[in-house]
Each structure stands twice: as C-alpha cells, then as structure tokens.
C-alpha cells in the first residue's frame, strides 16, 4: 500500500515537472507583459516537432536538441512580441486575447497541414528504461525531463533575481509605468520575457519527445493543465506556478490511483475550484503583481 502511494507520488512529480515548464512560461508572460498567451501549448508542439525532425533527420538525441529548440523558440518569441503582441498592448484586453487565440489556431492548423495528424514518436535507448528501487520504478526519460525542468526553473529564478535585466523584468511586472520612468525599456523587457517563456515551452517539447508523441493537438493537452497551475499558483508568480504544477501532477496521479482512473482531472479541477472559492488570489497568497 505504502509502495503504491510512493509510486503514485513519484509519477505525479515527474509529470508535474513538465506541467511546470509550460505553466511557468504562461505565468511569466502574464506577469511581465500582462497578456494571457493561449498559444503556449502550440509552442510546446513546435518544440516537439523540432526535436522530432532533428532526431529522425540527423539522429540527434531529443535531449540534445534542447540547444536548438530553446534558442529557436526564444527568437520566435522575440519576433512575435515585436511584430504582433506589441501592437495590441493597451488598456483593452480583448485584442490580446483574440490575437493569442488566433495564433494558437493558426499554428495548430499549420501543423496539421504540414505534418498531418499522425502521431510521431522518437525511440531512444532510454525511452523504455526505468530505474528500479525495491518495488519502485522511475522511468529514465521522465527523470531526466524532471531534472532538466527543475534546473531550467532554477536558472529562470536566478535570472529574475540576480541580473539587471531580470530585475527590470520584475520591476516592469510590478508597475510598468514606474519602471518606464526608472529608465527601463519596456519593449526590450517584454521581448525577453516572451522569448524566455517560449524557450521554456520549447524545452518542454524537447524533454517530452523521448516518451510522448508529437501531434498537432498535443499542446492543448498541456496548456489546460498549465492554465490551472497558473491560477492556482497566483497569476504571474513563477514559484507559485512551479509548486502548483507539481501539486497538480501528484493530485492527478493520486486521484487516478485511489478515486478512479478517469477522475484525475476531476481532482485537479476540484483543487482549482476550492482554491478560487477560499483563496481567490491563488495558493501563493500575496499578490505578486
């Protein structure tokens, strides 16, 4: 019994690490640029396809392809911020919502057109391997994904707290007008934030590839969890999103184990409802905005 619980927690934490990469991206964009990026899942999909094609065309391990997917998506993020998002920033939220939603649909259908709806899998030597500890097992590919995800989250935290640009980003997220008065160039800060968020989505894609299939709709599976995590962890709060993602992974896994195999998401959404009812600002408590 104990073993089953521990195994369920391990499984939950491992998938929670991936949720974290997606949700941190969403919360970073929301915190800094103040827009909700509905297309974040599609950027995960792009990351997956980049890794898939590098693996099948050039034999590059999906994990190594991080060094391609992350910069590519960073640049894509800067370009999207510069040419699209910048134009709709303003007091009215509607154009921003429509823009990122449209972007999501565009990317999804573009992927359908280019790659078809087929599932694409990369088979690596460690895809089916697991570390066995007593009765417990830890899938190698997921463990690597988890460790890298945590390392990237840590790096982002360091960046936000120790570099000038990071501090500027946090300042811009707290009060855009005052930050501008202090000599911070919001366009530059927003572009870096958007780029960094997309780079994280790209990383999530590459890390997923050894154990999950790429297909045009794949982003939607993860983005739903990401939005819940972002709300649970307080909008705009990076650490909150990380903690909430891990909690959701564990809640989902325990739900499947002890409530019913199709109730994983019910447990997660129940968590969301209760949090919104009793602590509307999210589990993080203090408002990070």
């Amino acid at each position, binding site marked *: 019994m104990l073993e089953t619980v521990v195994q369920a927690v391990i499984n939950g934490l491992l998938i929670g690490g991936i949720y974290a990469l997606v949700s941190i991206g969403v919360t970073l964009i929301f915190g800094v640029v103040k827009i909700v990026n509905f297309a974040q899942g599609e950027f995960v999909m792009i990351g997956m396809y980049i890794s898939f094609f590098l693996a099948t065309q050039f034999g590059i391990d999906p994990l190594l392809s991080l060094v391609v997917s992350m910069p590519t998506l960073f640049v894509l993020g800067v370009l999207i911020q510069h040419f699209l998002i910048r134009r709709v920033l303003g007091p009215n939220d509607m154009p921003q919502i429509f823009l990122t939603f449209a972007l999501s649909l565009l990317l999804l259908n573009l992927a*359908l057109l280019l790659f078809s*709806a087929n599932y694409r899998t990369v088979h690596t030597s460690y895809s089916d391997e*697991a570390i*066995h500890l007593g009765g417990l097992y830890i899938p190698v590919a997921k463990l690597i994904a988890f460790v890298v995800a945590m390392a990237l989250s840590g790096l982002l935290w360091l960046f936000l707290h120790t570099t000038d640009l990071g501090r500027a980003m946090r300042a811009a997220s707290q009060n855009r007008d005052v930050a501008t008065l202090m000599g911070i160039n919001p366009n530059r800060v927003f572009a870096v934030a958007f780029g960094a968020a997309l780079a994280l989505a790209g990383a999530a894609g590459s890390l997923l590839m050894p154990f999950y*299939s790429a297909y045009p709709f794949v982003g939607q599976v993860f983005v739903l969890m990401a939005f819940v995590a972002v709300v649970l962890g307080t909008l705009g709060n990076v650490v909150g999103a990380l903690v909430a993602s891990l909690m959701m992974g564990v809640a*989902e*896994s325990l739900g499947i*184990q002890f409530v019913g195999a199709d109730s994983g998401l019910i447990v997660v959404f129940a968590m969301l409802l209760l949090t919104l009812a009793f602590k509307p600002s999210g589990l993080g408590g203090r408002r990070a905005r």
Partner: protein
Amino acid sequence: MTNERPQSVVASRKAAEKPRRHSRRQFLKTTGTALAAAGFGAVPLRGWAADPVNIGALYPTTGSMAQIGVGCVAAAKLAVEMINDAGGIKSLGGAKLNLILSDVQSDTTVTRTETDRLISGNKLSAIHGCFASALTLIASEVCERAKVPIITGSSSDQLNKGRTYTFTPFARASQFARAQLQMSKLVADQPKVAVIFENTAFGTSTSNGLKELAPGEGVEIVMFEPYSAGFTDASPLINKVKASGANTLFSVSYLNDLILIVRTVRQVGLNVAINGGSGGFVIPDFYKNVGKLADGLQGVAHWNHDMDDNAQKVNAEYKKRTGEFLFEYAGGLVAQTFMIADALERAASPDPQKVREALSTLDVSSGYAAMAPGGKVKFGPDGKNVYGRPVGVQWQNGDLASVFPKEDARAPLIKS
C-alpha cells in the same frame, strides 16, 4: 435540421462543384432521351456512360482521428476504382460509382451537420462511414431519418438497435469481447484480466461486453476501470494495474494512449500479456511508433489483410499506393463498397430505399463483397451480419498476423 453549415474552404469548394455535376447529369439525361427518341432504344450507347451513382463517404480526415480517416478515404477510392474498372453497375447500364467525400473532422457536432448536408445536397444511393463509434452513432441517426442506407465497420452494438437503414457487416463489440476473452485463455492457464478502457462510446461498449461475458468464459476480471482518453501520463494507471495482480491486460484505447500504455508496462517491468483489442492497435502507425515492443501483442479486428486471397490481393494494391498494409477499417471498407455495388446491381435502381431493400437481402459467400472473417455476409433484420465474427490478430515481426480462431489463423500464436 437545416442543411446550413459553417463557411469553410471545403464548403465553398464543394458548393462550387455542385452546379457542374448537376448540369452534367442534366446534359446526359437530355442526350440520353434524345438518343432514345432517335430510335436507338433505351440501351445506352458505348461511350455514353449512364448517370453515375453517388455514394457518400463520411470520414474524419482532420482532427484527432484523422490518420485512420485518411486511410479509409484512400481505401474507398481504391474500391470505387476497382468497381468502375470492372464495368460499373451493369444493371444500371454500367453506371460508375461516384464517391462524394465529406470530412467529419473527428467531431460529433460536425458529423451531424456534415451528414445532413451530404444527404440534402446530393442524390445519394448509400453512405459508408465513419469508423469511430461515437461519430457513426450520430451519422446513422441522421441517415435513418433521411431514409438513406448507411453501411459501417463501426462495432458498437447500439447501431443494431432501433435502426432499419444501418448495416453492420462485421463483428459487434460484444463479439470482439468474447474473442478477446477466449484468446486470453490461450496464453494463460488462469487468466486474471485487468480491463482499462477509454471513457468514450467505443471504450465503454467494448469493455461492458468484456465484463458481461467474462464469467461465462471462465475468465476473472480483477480490475475494470475507465480512464480519460488522451491522457498525458499512463504511469498512475499502470501502477494501478500492477497493484491489481493481473496477468493479462486488456486495453481498449486509440493509438496514442496505447503507445503510452505499452511503453509504461515495459518500464514498470510488468509481465503481462497485452490484448489491445481493436481501435488504434491494429493500424500500421502503431508499429511505427512502438517498434519491437509491439511484437507478441495481441488484438482483435473485424478484418485483417491476410484473411483470404481477395484480402491479400487488395492489400497488395493498397500497399503499392500508400506504402502501408491495408488496415482493419480501410480493408473492411473495400468489402463494404462491394456490398453496396452488389445491392445496386440487384436493385437496378439508384433509389436509396430500393438499395436498402437490396442490402437487407444481401447474401454473399464469394468475391470482394464476402471479404469478412468467415467469408460470408448476410444481414439479419437488425442489420447485423448473421455470420459476422472477429479475427484475433498478433503483431509478429512488424506485421499483423491472423492467429484466432483456428479456421481464420494464418500463423501460430506466439506465447510471450
């Protein structure tokens, strides 16, 4: 129900085609009448084709089920070509079959509007589709109301309840279940089965059949759980299977879920025989994604490409065109198209009601129309093939071999 539908590229393209088809038909009609009047009799001249017979094809070629739908469309085109090349429908003066495709987008709402649109926008003699039970149940409802016969490879037992225009030439979900249970006894002396199934029409109907029939077949079910289709992680579910002490796993799933399940079972080091049933398990994509891990895995299908000589012949042609073997749904669809042709031949009319009558009296045991496990097709009053039975299959070296029952087996079952 109106025949309006959202504006889309497909819609406008189809709309653009429509007037042309009408004018050609009118042209042929006028020409035919003129020729008859000129004393050539009612027999059409060589070179003057009779009116083509429209057959509707409802398949998801976009959306989550697209990869199967696209294969179905390729098979439907192949079947129509085969019939037309062999001279079309002779009793209708060699009329060619004209396939009218419709993309139901893997979506139940779209399926309803598309079926409506297809029927009201075209003079159809019959329809085939949609393979996925959730979609077929809706399409068959619309066909019932419009009195157009639909023939389908979908296996939901519900399709045989209260419908008179729906024909199901292949095995029903409940029959799949019995075959699966019997196969489990071939690999384990005392099968303890964990049944996990996706919470959809397909998953629920198939697994309910398993549950009902297990006691009668002497198989113990130790776990019976629905899961949310399209999950991110199979580990919690397989953790649960492990805790149940099962030695056999029945997974009623479409492709992506099954890939995750098979990989996770391997990672856990769980030693169970896996029967993937039908669904995503019996298509070439499964092996492409799972590779050698798939070898030894069992399943059940309503059709398999090595069943008989005709199946092998059609398979060779399909393989030449698409590079992949003719999978269950697509292969069954070729047979269905020949059943429609057989009915048209005997009805000697493109009128959908007469085609329905002819389908209900279909009785074949040779040729492509009889290309079903058991080799015989005859519909009962509920539209179900009275001879219908599934074929047990197993992945062996990247190919799907028929292994069960003995009469249909083309290769011995490998015990893993």
